[in-house]
């Protein structure tokens, strides 16, 4: 057992309101800089939809992630890794048009325009070329709330039947917030010829060393989630840093802090690093369970002992025991990895969303199985769609999660109305009163401190006395090549 600790974010998509506050919190703090304008380390996508960059899920096109090639894992686009031959050519890398051309507006014209014969307006200007753009044709959230679009959403690779898109009676709409998954098997890191990308031992955060990066952009191609970006001003790759300056000090990430839907949960997971490779060799529809199996029980004394051997501090073990991520991912199996079949073993997890039934003219309203809360089979969202997104194609792992949500609601409704709540309902979905109460609490009254349990980092090992008194405190050492 090779115990590692990882900070993990869990998203309850059933609560996501698609507001994008998270994206802007991130943008304001991290990527409001020249060269980073087009980067959205955190973004939110409307599903069905093609997302940002466009069609990122389509690995036939982008060739990101890993494949199981006859029992051996290799990078889909590069084979075993970068070679001299492909060093100067990235055929599968997204172009700026796949993201969007970042723009600004000539606002100053509104008060600066000379007297004219029509009202002055402000033109759109490219932030790359500085030239006027006649029209905006793309953006980081272009298909927002669009759902029913034959032009965009119909190309969502998770959709088995694209005709649903243009049927007012059948369309559905959900949201998918995304950031770097800080994977256990990061394709970006594996692909980097400069070895500039590393996964931090203490929290599992994957970072691009801004001193080392040479801008080869293998990482951009290799990441199947397209969450490594190229800064065209500094010539280096940048990506979500999991707000490590905040998490190191026990604060949750800016995106999570600002999540007004209160959908995000943060906590420590312990896993067995020695089992990662084997787990990733499972067939697609077994990947979710294999990944879950790697997660260790932090209460287990053997795990704790092994963890201490790997220098995982006690307060991290305490945090792991109280981790909402452990409850949601492992204990209750509610949260699922996004596209496990990309085989990077992503460390962001998603609870799938319920969806409404429709009542249209002439249609009989489908009487719900349990009183007035619709049953699983009646949801608008096709289960194979969710399975494609979150189950590696395995519908069962998705329905298990949804069934728990429904059972929880039905059980709580009875309690709410002072009726006798039938525990059999819970049992059918794999819950009991204790676990249901725990989930209920996490999804509702759990406050800021309960939703995010983040142990701060101990930094005193690194000459704290000197640092505190020294001139280096907070002074930026400019790396070679500038920032």
């Amino acid at each position, binding site marked *: 057992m090779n115990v590692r600790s990882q900070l993990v974010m869990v998203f309850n998509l059933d609560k996501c*309101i698609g507001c994008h506050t998270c994206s802007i919190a991130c943008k304001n703090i991290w990527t409001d800089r020249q060269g980073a304008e087009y980067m959205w380390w955190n973004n939110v996508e409307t599903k069905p939809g093609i997302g940002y960059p466009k069609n990122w899920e389509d690995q036939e096109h982008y060739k990101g992630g890993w494949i199981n090639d006859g029992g051996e894992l290799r990078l889909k686009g590069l084979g075993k890794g970068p070679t001299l031959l492909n060093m100067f050519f990235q055929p599968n890398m997204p172009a700026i048009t796949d993201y969007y051309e970042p723009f600004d507006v000539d606002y100053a014209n509104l008060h600066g325009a000379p007297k004219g014969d029509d*009202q002055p*307006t402000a033109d759109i200007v490219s932030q790359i070329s500085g030239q006027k753009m006649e029209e905006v044709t793309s953006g980081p959230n272009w298909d927002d709330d669009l759902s029913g679009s034959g032009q965009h959403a119909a190309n969502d690779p998770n959709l088995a039947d694209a005709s649903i898109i243009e049927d007012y009676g059948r*369309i559905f709409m959900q949201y998918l917030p995304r950031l770097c998954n800080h994977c256990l098997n990061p394709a970006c890191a594996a692909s980097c010829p400069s*070895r500039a990308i590393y996964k931090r031992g203490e929290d599992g955060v994957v970072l691009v060393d801004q001193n080392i990066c040479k801008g080869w952009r293998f990482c951009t191609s290799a990441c199947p989630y397209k969450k490594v970006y190229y800064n065209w001003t500094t010539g280096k790759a940048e990506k979500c840093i999991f707000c490590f*300056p905040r998490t190191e000090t026990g604060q949750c990430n800016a995106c999570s802090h600002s999540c007004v839907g209160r959908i995000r949960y943060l906590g420590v997971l312990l896993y067995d690093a020695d089992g990662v490779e084997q787990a990733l060799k499972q067939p697609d529809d077994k990947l979710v369970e294999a990944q879950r199996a790697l997660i260790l029980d932090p209460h287990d004394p053997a795990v704790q002992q092994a963890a201490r051997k790997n220098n995982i501090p006690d307060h991290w073990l305490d945090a792991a025991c109280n981790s909402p991520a452990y409850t949601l991912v492992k204990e209750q199996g509610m949260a699922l990895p996004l596209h496990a079949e990309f085989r990077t073993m992503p460390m962001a997890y998603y609870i799938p969303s319920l969806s409404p039934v429709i009542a249209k003219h002439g249609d009989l309203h489908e009487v719900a199985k349990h009183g007035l809360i619709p049953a699983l089979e009646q949801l608008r969202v096709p289960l194979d769609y969710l399975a494609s997104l979150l189950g590696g194609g395995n519908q069962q792992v998705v329905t298990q999660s949804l069934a728990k949500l429904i059972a929880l609601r039905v059980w709580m409704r009875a309690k*709410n109305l002072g009726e006798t709540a039938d525990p059999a309902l819970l049992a059918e979905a794999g819950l009991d009163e204790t676990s249901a109460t725990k989930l209920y609490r996490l999804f*509702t009254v759990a406050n*800021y401190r309960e939703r995010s349990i983040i142990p701060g980092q101990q930094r005193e090992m690194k000459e704290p006395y000197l640092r505190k008194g020294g001139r280096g405190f907070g002074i930026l050492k400019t790396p070679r090549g500038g920032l």
Partner: protein
Amino acid sequence: MADNRIKDESCCGGRDWEEFYRNRWQYDKVVRSTHGVNCTGGCSWMVHVKDGIVGWELQANDYPQLSGDIPNHEPRGCPRGISYSWYLYSPLRVKYPYLRGALLDRWQEARAQHDDPVTAWASIVENPDRRASYTSQRGMGGFRRADWETVVELIAASTVYTAKKHGPDRIIGFTPIPAMSMISYAAGTRFLQLLGGVCMSFYDWYCDLPPASPQVWGEQTDVCESADWYNASYIVLCGANLPQTRTPDSHFMTEARYRGAKVVVMSPDLNIASKFADTWLPVEQGHDGAFWMALNHVLLKEFYVDRQVPFFEEYARTYTDLPFLVKLEQRDGIWQAGEHLRASELERSAGMEQGEWILCVSDASGKIRIPKGSLGMRWDSKPGNWNLDMTDVLDNQPIDCALSLLGDRATTVCFRYEGEQDALREVPCRSIQTVNGEVLVTTVFDLLLAQFGVSRDLGGDYPSSYDDDKPFTPAWQEKHTGVGRETLLQIAREWGENGEKSNGRNMVITGAGVNHWYHNDLIYRSFITALLLTGSVGRNGGGMAHYVGQEKVVPLAPWTAVAMAQDWVKPSRLQNTPSFWYIHSDQWRYDRNFTDYFKPETGENIPAHAADVNAKAVRLGWLPFAPHFNDSPLRLMQQAHEAGATDDAAIRAWLVKRLQSGETRFAIEDPDAPENFPRLWFIWRSNAISASAKGHEYFLKHVLGAPNSTVTASEVAKDQVTELVWHDKAPEGKMDLIVDLNFRMDTSTVYSDIILPAATWYEKSDVNTTDMHSFVNCMDAAVPPSWESKADWKIFSMIAKKVSELSAPHFPEPFKDIIAAPLLHDTPGEIAQRRVKDWKQGECEPIPGKTMPNLAIVERDYVNLYNRFMSLGPNIAHLGAHGVNWDADDVHADLLNRLPTRSWGGKTYIDLEDERNVADTLLAFAPETNGELAVRAYQNMEARIGKPLAHLAEGSRNVRISWDDITRQPRRFHNSPVWSGLVDGGRPYSPYVLNVEHGVPWRTLSGRQSLYLDHPWYTSFNEGLPTFKGKLPAAVLDELQEGVQDGLVLNFLTPHGKWGIHSTYTDNLRMLTLSRGGQVVWLNHEDAAQAGIEDNEGVELINNNGVVVCKAIVSSRIPKGSVFMYHAPERTINIKKSRKTGKKGGVHNSLARIRLKPTLMLGGYAQFSYYFNYWGPTGVNRDCYVVVRKLRG
């Protein structure tokens, strides 16, 4: 596999470089502030400052927890709010004062010739060419930067000139929604009220006021805070897209689902909210009312007739007007529901004081009884009977009141429905003896059952079953809503059962989606009925939750005093904006008689044109109007004085006589005469010319005289209007000067004459409250005002100072002004007019305050205007709101010691120069934040209602909240009788629990929640009982242009958007980037295909009101037949020229205009009594049609 990567550790370069990102995160200080935007959010934000620059904001997460049973509020905030820091340093920011070049030239020329700036201004505006040289360039660019001294002098000169030449009631100010930044609001209104200027309403103008609320509850709007959604067990979203428009609150809804609440979403489009629905009901837009009418049909039948639910019946008897008696009246041989039976009509109670305003019930034995609580008991001389006790007021015996008279006899009564056959239905009734002879009476409950077609084996034209297509069956609603009858039945049964099982925890969350229709009051009354029938109002987790407009100024009483300068002068000059702009932007000229789509039955003397009704409403004292008269009120006072009228009574008599003779006329009767124009317009905290200008192009044409108006409508009112003088040529450019205080270049600044740079929300101190939560928040300065910007409070104080200076030669002494104020709600004026009688038509005598407006004479002192502005005046210690009063001399005395003071004229006052002192003043004098005053206020209310209440404030008696408190943490306000909710014990605020739990009457005719509106005008329009009326048909709206055929005709809807709060943020680069980079409309894919329009293609929207040019978003989630333009864009970002006009396209309001519903203009009759933002016609704008076509090709 590269497993060495998994093992990690640092890469080869070491990890010192990580400080790059650590440094990016570091900051120097954090300041708590909020956003002063009309969104109801009231979110607490932590603004991070680095190197003197605002870097970013993150939400506060330290809200006090209400209780362990309710989720916390953190982190309140949305994508709009979190983008605010972008504005501060963006090129969109207004950094300096600007004015139109031609105006600056004229001013400099004039100042060179005239020493007195007032004379200089006269030389410009009295010369038509000079005036036109800048007014004709409005909106056409050519701004020039100026210095503060120049612009303040110009503005002050124009103010003094206008007051002197035309009267101060020609000076108007528009700023909306005080709650979001109440001191900034108060800045301009305090100045205007000291001056005698006009403060314009907003809640009714925005159509955020739901008139059904005053109709049913006598209350402007009172709603639960969003935390209380969590207590609901059945939630219907009807016209509200919570995640999109109540972003920080929506988690309470998503979380309530886990507590087992069912969520039903009624929405024509698959919107974000419908993602959270258990059942999505895609109801035809504007026809939600039909669904609810049928739901009520099922409720009445299954929960009141087939089976009785004791909880429902008890509620109906105690808290609604259902048991009250109504007379049946015969008209042309047909029985119809008439007025309520009054105590004054019975021999037993004929002598009762205010007996005409006291209603009756029948007890189980058939005796007519007079329960306590009717409005007459609020205003009689014997306090203590105005309460909800079902006890006879004459003998104090309990009344076992009857809901129904079923059993005695029945009479066939006629019920009329729009678009349906009249129905003759038997109604249980009884004959009783009155002082006027025998009359037939029934109960509201009996009428309601008949209205809804629930027969109880009575004869007549009742539907035979749910499948019988007659009003208001499940089958009937199908054709209006598109929702199947089985679905309706299921939802109706769930609704009823949930109400029964949960003791009324049924909730309707509603908003603009239904409130912006012409017949919004009917839609609202339909679901309010469903709430009342299930006992769901006045309980936590139940009721109507209407959230449009952040209307709740928590410290209402002291705020009103400071904002309206009532600490110095009462009453205030307040104007209902819908009437004002309907008339002054000349939209009335293009409006045809409403009788083509809203037809009263014959009998009542109701004019046929909305402008005529409005003129009648003004002269009868129902609605205010500015200017008041066709001459300056100051000049009238001089003339009265010269005519020998020395005291106020004589002045009033003099004026009444002149009004009667026609020598002096109400200005509304001739609004297009130059002497009746509004002349000077202050705009702050708003986008008054665009997002807030319904009929924007009419504003451009008539109010501004801007050359790019695109109105093509015909002036159809010419031969229809009878009360207003018709001028063949409508005026263009009525305003002499438009001054806009703004931090950004929005559409209004582009069209204004003078732009003053306003401080942003991170650069000033203010107080912020909302109806969505029960905290008092601060807005505070993270950095000083950037560049030359200043806080609103500072700007208006500068103008006030200059006005006082310039007034010395023009208004050297204090002088008199007269205010024509309507009959007000919560005053005896609300029982002034038992019958509609028009003195002008000789039906009664003109009596101020009774049959016509109050004529209040006040004193102005312009030389001391600035001193008064800066000093807290003497009336502050005697406050009141909603009819509750309290004294606070001790608080005043204490504050005089605590806060800085200012002395002048031999007296010392609290100094208001620093906004933080204003904040402390508001918090000190409000019962909501000063517990001792809450006790006193409850004691005052106790005396009137005769029930114990003061104990409700005992727990918070010693609690006081100060400015310093709210800068540290959001602080929860406490119980106060100014509001009808209770918040003690960690309870979420829910309206009317005070009424239900403590017997306090609603401020309505019966004192109960009113299902029946017995005013003859309502009877005349068949709206006495809840009913359904559909969208107005396009054919009678005169909006579609003849000849424009090459496009789709679609219903134009403007729901609230995702990427802006109204127009704010829609121009913010963050929002533009996350959306489509400018104005868009949403179309259904099949509609778009029919017009050959593709996603992101340029389109043109045309009707007679104006033109919009933008891009299309195409999606099947939009219902066919409609086009959505989210409210409200700016016409400033990347707007193309229109194919039709050759000019740049407009904004959403370019396609809209308003129509005023005459039944909302009534006054002097119980809950139909005016108050600012409270009652009056609303700016409906959703019954609107446009042609959509490709911009090119």
